[in-house]
């Protein structure tokens, strides 16, 4: 974990209500896929956790959806403005389990963390398939970015207005070695039911701190209580106990 005052370099819409934010800070540690950063917005008490979308030396990029006052306020901010940020939070995905043909599943605001993961897996020479799920055509983002990594990319829209019609689970390929997934809980549950290999899922919860101090984000897992912000947000599929 690092606390840094980062400078906004870019904050631009990718799709309706979805923005890409690039932040610069000299000396920023490497951010790993599946980790998140925690942004303090002026006038808000709690920080806002957002997954790492990409990382280059001294620069972290995130993609966020405006869903409430904090993210709406963030969308108003301009390049040059500063943000007090905690970086390098959470465990991140374990890439060593990917196997040769990992499958990456992202739904809506769960798509972003898949990007840096895909990039790293490609760098390791894996054959990556990314399935990106959205509600409708106009919400689609990041497809081109995944294609530029030369992943195999499928887009599914719930209303069929773009790509394949249905949920990410409706377009699973025949063969894959491992699954990485991030998205809303109903999607993760469906993925859990549908996929045949082992995998890692990224979870979300309202957070008090984001770095393990408050026990605000705890879940029960097969191995006992775990903090999403510290032992997570990535959990082995088999560890997750879904609440009824």
């Amino acid at each position, binding site marked *: *974990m690092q*606390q840094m005052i980062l400078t906004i370099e870019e904050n631009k819409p990718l799709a309706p209500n979805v923005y890409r934010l690039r932040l610069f800070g000299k000396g920023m540690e490497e951010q790993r896929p599946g980790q998140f950063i925690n942004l*303090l917005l002026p006038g*808000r*008490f*709690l*920080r806002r956790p957002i997954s790492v979308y990409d990382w280059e030396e001294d620069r972290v990029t995130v993609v966020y959806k405006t869903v409430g006052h904090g993210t709406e306020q963030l969308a108003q901010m301009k390049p040059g403005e500063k943000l007090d940020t*905690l970086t390098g939070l959470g465990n991140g995905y374990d890439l060593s389990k990917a196997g040769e043909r990992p499958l990456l599943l992202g739904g809506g605001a769960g798509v972003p963390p898949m990007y840096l993961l895909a990039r790293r897996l490609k760098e390791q020479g894996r054959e990556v398939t990314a399935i990106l799920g959205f509600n409708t055509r106009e919400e689609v983002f990041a497809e081109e970015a995944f294609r530029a990594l030369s992943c195999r990319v499928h887009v599914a829209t719930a209303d069929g207005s773009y790509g394949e019609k249905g949920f990410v689970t409706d377009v699973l390929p025949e063969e894959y070695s491992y699954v990485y997934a991030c998205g809303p809980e109903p999607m993760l549950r469906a993925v859990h039911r549908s996929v045949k290999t082992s995998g890692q899922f990224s979870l979300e*919860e*309202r*957070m*008090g*701190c984001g*770095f*393990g*101090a*408050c*026990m*605000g*984000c*705890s*879940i*029960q897992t097969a191995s006992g*209580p775990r903090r999403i912000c510290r032992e997570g947000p990535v959990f082995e599929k088999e560890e997750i106990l879904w*609440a009824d």
Partner: protein
Amino acid sequence: MGRLSTTLCGIELDNPVIPASGTFGYGWEFARWYDINCLGTFSFKGTTREPRFGNPTPRIAECPAGMINAVGLQNPGVDRVIEEELPALRQVFHKKVMANVSGFSVEDYAYTCERLDKEEQVGWLEVNISCPNVHGGGMSFGTDPALAAEVTRAVKQVTKKPVLMKLSPNVTDITAIARACEEAGADGLSLINTLQGMRIDLKKRKPILANVMGGVSGPAVFPVALRMVYQVSRAVSIPVVGMGGVTTAEDVLEMLMAGACAVEVGAANLTDPFACKKIIQDLPFAMDRYHIESVSELKGGH
């Protein structure tokens, strides 16, 4: 004695700044980020007889200038605290720690305190009486002077270490609870715990917290906390540890002026993991600004 030093129930503190229970874990994790020996001491996560997972999530909501938590005393239980947490802490913290204890019956409190009393690392027992009394209809121990006194007496009987009773602000007259604890033998008082509050999710039209209600903390509660510290420190003659919304070195000074001999910092640690370190660094400058020579000069300076 340095400019910042103070005394809490006979134990000297290098400075009056103490991370509050529930916002600093068992301390050793923070030691990865800074040398926590700069603290006066810290109060570890509320510990109970048995391990507890706590409440279902969501456990956290935001509110203006503060937050609400309904963690529900998640902790590994006193056995593992003694076997795992304290030994891990010993590697990084060389001062006495404040042991925060919770319970759901008088016996719970006494059992857990007795166990922790034997630990050399523990300097003080801070007994959180905001929890519901499961054997007595669920009313919190901290809202009834007689119950508060009963817990105090039970704990005092099994411990030799100074006992600080931690008071709930959700009462009509906090001085009545404070006096009851003092008469029952408490060595000091800690206040305030969180104010009961809630938020509703407008989209879902239902409470944000799975537990419906939770405890408000952060700057929003500062004026209420300050008032209670002021009232209680005038109503008793044992030392008072003040807390509730403290975020800056100036807030620390205000709490001391209200009558506290030391100050805990809670929610501020969650939004800024370095909050306590920064407050301690800022204290001498804030004192210069208000022409305060030493922390001890503020004690009783009202």
